[in-house]
Every structure is written in C-alpha cells, then in structure tokens.
C-alpha cells in the first residue's frame, strides 16, 4: 500500500470549503436563535401550571427527543410538501434544526426555571408585575444563567447535527466535502480536514461561550 497523502486538494478548493462553512454557520445560528425562542416558550408552557399547555409542550419534547434528526429533516423536506408546504433545502434545514434544538432547550430551560425559588415569583407578583413580566424579567435571566453550560452543550450538538442537512442537498460544509470527494476521490484528506473544521468550530463556540457568560450572566455569580 503506497498511497501518498495530498492535502493540496484542500488548498486548491478552499473557496468551496469556506462557502460550505459559511452556510453551516448561518444555518446553525438561525436555527439556534429560533430554537431558543421555541425553547423559552416551551419552558413557559411546561411551568405554566396549565395542564393542557404543559401536555402540549411535553408531547413536543418527547416526540422530538425520541426520533432521529435525520427522520425529522426528511419529514419536513419531503413530507410537508404533501400538505402543500414546500420549503427550499436551506429553509427545511433551518426549520428542522430549530424544531430539534427547541425541544432539547425546552427541557434545559425548564430545569432552569424550576431552579428559581418560589419566593422570587411571589415577590414579583406582590409588587404588581403581571405573570408574564415576572417570567420575563425575574425568572428567565437567572434561570438561563443557571443552565447556561447545558445550553452550550446542546448548541454544540446542534452545530454537529447540521452536517446531516447535506443529505437534502443544502450546500453546507459536509456537502462541500461530498462535492470535492466526488471530483477528486481524496476521501480521507477531505473528510478528515472537514472533521477538523467542525472541531475548530466547536472549540470556537466553547471559547465564545466563556465570554458570553462573562458578558451576560456575570450577575448570577454574586447572587448565590
């Protein structure tokens, strides 16, 4: 066996890879932003004390958490058009990932909300806040601060999940790899490099999360 590694193929096609990485970041960011909104609403439902809202949110969480992301993606991209809702590959990728991230973050944020002492809510109501304002201004910020590490872990998993969207021909980083692989047959070099780029993105998120925590959740440190 005398295969000689040639990572030159990476440099020759760096533009393709960067374009793919850009879409991966775009899909991740949008899906995580939408998914976090879903997660906060879901957590509000779960802790609302209203049995119907609680049940709806719980059913959503269980369905998403107990089925593979690939099936969710295929369902949205190929299945929804049967109902007349046609999405582009990119839209389907963002929607499916947001729905997926939303379910996991619902449970994470719920845990955070339930970690807040009841007296905080009662104090808020006592000084005349409406229920929703109590949730928004008193419960949510420390709740997010408490579960921030778990949320970041889920963000990382979501970014790694985006690789699956290459299967509906959304032109993300993994899709760029498939494209280059089919043209150059340098499978090992290409997929190994792309795996390392994902690893780099993951490390970047871990690094950024440290600064975000200092920026937004510094208050939580002194509370306890």
């Amino acid at each position, binding site marked *: 066996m005398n295969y000689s590694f040639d990572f030159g193929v990476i440099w020759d096609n760096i533009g393709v890879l960067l374009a793919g990485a850009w879409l991966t970041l775009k899909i991740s960011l949008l899906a995580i932003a939408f998914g976090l909104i879903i997660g906060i609403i879901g957590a509000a439902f779960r802790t609302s004390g209203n049995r119907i809202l609680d049940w709806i949110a719980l059913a959503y969480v269980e369905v998403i958490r107990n*089925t593979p992301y690939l099936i969710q993606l*295929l369902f949205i991209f190929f299945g929804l058009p049967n109902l007349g809702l046609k999405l582009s590959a990119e839209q389907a990728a963002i929607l499916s990932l947001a729905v997926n991230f939303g379910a996991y973050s619902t449970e994470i944020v719920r845990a955070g909300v339930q970690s807040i002492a009841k007296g905080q809510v009662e104090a808020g109501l006592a000084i005349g806040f409406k229920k929703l304002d109590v949730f928004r201004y008193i419960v949510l910020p420390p709740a997010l601060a408490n579960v921030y590490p778990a949320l970041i872990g889920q963000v990382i998993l979501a970014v790694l999940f985006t690789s699956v969207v290459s299967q509906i021909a959304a032109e993300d980083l993994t899709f760029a790899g498939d494209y280059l692989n089919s043209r150059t047959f340098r499978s*090992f070099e290409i*997929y190994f490099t792309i795996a390392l780029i994902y690893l780099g993105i993951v490390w970047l998120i871990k690094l950024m999360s440290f600064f975000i925590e200092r920026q937004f959740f510094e208050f939580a440190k002194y509370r306890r």
Partner: protein
Amino acid sequence: MDEFTVSRIFINLLIATKWTIILSIIAFIGGGIVGFLVALMRISSIKWVRGISWAYVEFFQGTPLLLQLFLAFFGLSVAFGINLSPLQAATLALTGFTSAFLADIWRGSIAALPIGQWEAGSAIGFGYFKQLQLIILPQAVKLSVAPTVGFLVQVIKGTSLASIIGFTELSRAATQINNVTLQSLLIFSLAGIIYFLLCYPLSTWSQHLERKLSYKA
C-alpha cells in the same frame, strides 16, 4: 409490481427495524468495551495516557457522526486500502462515537466519588485495581446507570445515519420506499413512530432510574 399499501409499507419498515436494533446493540457493546478502557485511561495518573484519551474523546465528541461514518467508509478505503462493508464501517464509527460519550459519562461517575473512597481502599492494603474493582466501580456503576440508559437512545438515533453510507436499516428502508411511492408524509411518519416506540421506553426508564437514585441520595 407490488402495490404499496400502508400495511405493506409498515411491514417493510419493521423488517428493516431489525437492523436498526442489531446495529444499536453492536454499537453499544463495542462502545461499552472501548468506552470502559478510555474511561480508565482518562483517570490514569500517567500524563500521556490521559492526553491520548482526551484527544480521542474530543475528536469523537467534537466532530459530526456523519463525518466519522464517511471517514470509516470512504476515507479508510482510499487512503489505507481497508475496504469495509457499510455494516463494518458503521460498526467502527458508531463504536468510536458511543465509546467517547460513554467514557465521559463513566469517568464523571468515577470522579463523582469522594477521593476518600480510594484512600480508604489503599489504607486497607488494596492495590489500584482492587480499589477500582471492589470499592470504586460498584458505586460508580450505580451513579452511571441512568445516564447510560439515556445515552442508548442517542445510539439508536445515531444508527439512522448509517443509512447514508448505504447500510439498510429503518431510515434507509424508509428513504427507498419513499423513492418508489412518494408518500413521504406517511412513510417518514411511520418511521418516526417506530423510532419513537424503540426510544421512548428507554427514555422513560432512564428518567425513572434517575428519580430513584435522587430519592436515595
């Protein structure tokens, strides 16, 4: 040509489900064995052993499972002449993926025990492996059962990606039937229901174990 009725589709999916289950079991056993060794390496007192196991876990947790599958299936064959069947490549990649996460769970369970447990073992004259076997592991296993069962759900869901390198399990069967019938909504719903029926009992069991443990503590 066969007519694809709902029951026919469902039966075909169920047949393919057998391979989802088999692959999950293989990945869990392989990942369990390797994961146990990696967990021991992670708590080793030798620096380079810890370093290697750290890099191993970081690679498999920090890169997409899909890329790991591609590397095992396409990469090894092109670069090293190791031609793996889709099942073999899926076994290799899923073992790596599963072992990295299980190693982390188990290392955490061991690290959660007070250091005094080790010291007590050494005080009564146990060597390292005696301490591990008789004192540490029995307690760590109790702590780790719930998250381990919970992770089994991730393994089952992870096997769906083996469909992409051509291994015929539930997801690939669904995709193939979809290509013929184009009844996408129905087919992917059915596939989702089957996955749900596999995963939901495990999720519930894991949560139940977790509650039981926190009552005791």
